[in-house]
């Protein structure tokens, strides 16, 4: 007999041209279920008009990002146990800093356009991947192997970023991390964008992106590294190289 908890989901609701409200649903759950499971249950058994996004259910598609009690979570891999206690109220809200389309669904087009602007790589040669403990030395022929990029384009980092809250054109964590992944010495054409008003200098070191990123991208560290790359590229340019 699995453990049983009673939890209440307090879900943000908003349809076009209507005022927003919160609907509450109390349900019996197994605490080791994921938040997304509970939301799907609400949709299946309580309210068919609830809009939310998901596809893969295993942290790959990046569609199921929401705010749970004010913190950005990838809901398909966040267990109820990890964010709640028995009889808790869980407030579920859409990501911030994206226009709401319906209920928990936001328009992430802006993020995808920015990812495209830096030509974010979906896959990269394994020899260029910044992984925790790479083999002592890659062999040249290893570059035939590719690796999926860590970033799911889930938008959690954008939602958590204080600068992204007020400045729409600011590239933000995931696109800057994608630029860092390119390395400016391999892609000098990205320098103009990265060194621009909407680029790497606008980060104010809150490191919220790194705190919420569900996929080890560590955008905060990558932004800092991108600064180093930018400065050295600028200095190289300055000396005409």
């Amino acid at each position, binding site marked *: 007999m699995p453990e049983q908890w009673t939890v209440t989901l307090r879900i943000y609701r908003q349809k076009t041209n209507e005022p927003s409200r919160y609907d509450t649903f109390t349900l019996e759950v197994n605490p080791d279920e994921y938040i997304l499971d509970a939301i799907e249950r609400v949709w299946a058994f309580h309210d068919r008009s609830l809009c939310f996004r998901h596809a893969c259910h295993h942290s790959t598609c990046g569609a199921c990002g929401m705010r749970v009690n004010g913190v950005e979570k990838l809901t398909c891999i966040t267990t109820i146990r990890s964010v709640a206690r028995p009889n808790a109220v869980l407030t579920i809200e859409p990501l911030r800093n994206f226009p709401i389309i319906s209920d928990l669904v936001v328009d992430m087009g802006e993020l995808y356009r920015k990812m495209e602007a830096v030509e974010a790589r979906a896959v990269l040669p394994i020899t260029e991947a910044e992984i925790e403990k790479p083999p002592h030395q890659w062999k040249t022929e290893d570059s035939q192997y590719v690796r999926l990029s860590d970033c799911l384009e889930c938008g959690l980092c954008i939602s958590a970023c204080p600068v992204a809250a*007020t400045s729409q054109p600011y590239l933000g964590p995931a696109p800057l991390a994608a630029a860092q992944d390119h390395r400016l010495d391999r892609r000098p054409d990205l320098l103009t*964008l990265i060194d*621009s008003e909407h*680029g790497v200098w606008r980060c104010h070191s809150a490191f919220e992106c790194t705190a919420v990123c569900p996929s080890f991208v560590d955008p905060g560290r990558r932004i800092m590294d991108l600064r180093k790359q930018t400065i050295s590229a*600028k200095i190289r340019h300055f000396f005409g190289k």
Partner: protein
Amino acid sequence: MNSPSSEHFNYPTGRRAGENAWLWLVKMITGPLLVLILTLHLIVNHYMGSAHSGLMTYNDIVAYFRNPLIPLIEIIFVATVVTHSLLGVRGIILDMNPSQKVLTWVNAVLLLIGCSAVGYGIWLALVIASKST
């Protein structure tokens, strides 16, 4: 492995000098410099002087400014701190995504404030240095 060129999508790079490496470097250099000067400033103003409890009297300050190095340091100090603080204010305004028109005004006003503050600082340092106790 490189993706095709993104000619089809042009992100507004903001060619105006909203923020860039050099502006940012100025902030990064003036910052630590200020930590240094301010430490001295705090020590001098609170631990030196006739009673060793700080430069607390008019005479103390005028005497302190006798050394020609002091007005120079104070002038550098004013210029650095004004630059750093106004660049900081500008950074906050940039976070509010100003239009080109607003930013032009912001630049002009900050420049005016900055130049007058530094000018005033120089004048003040020289006036104090020329006083006698």
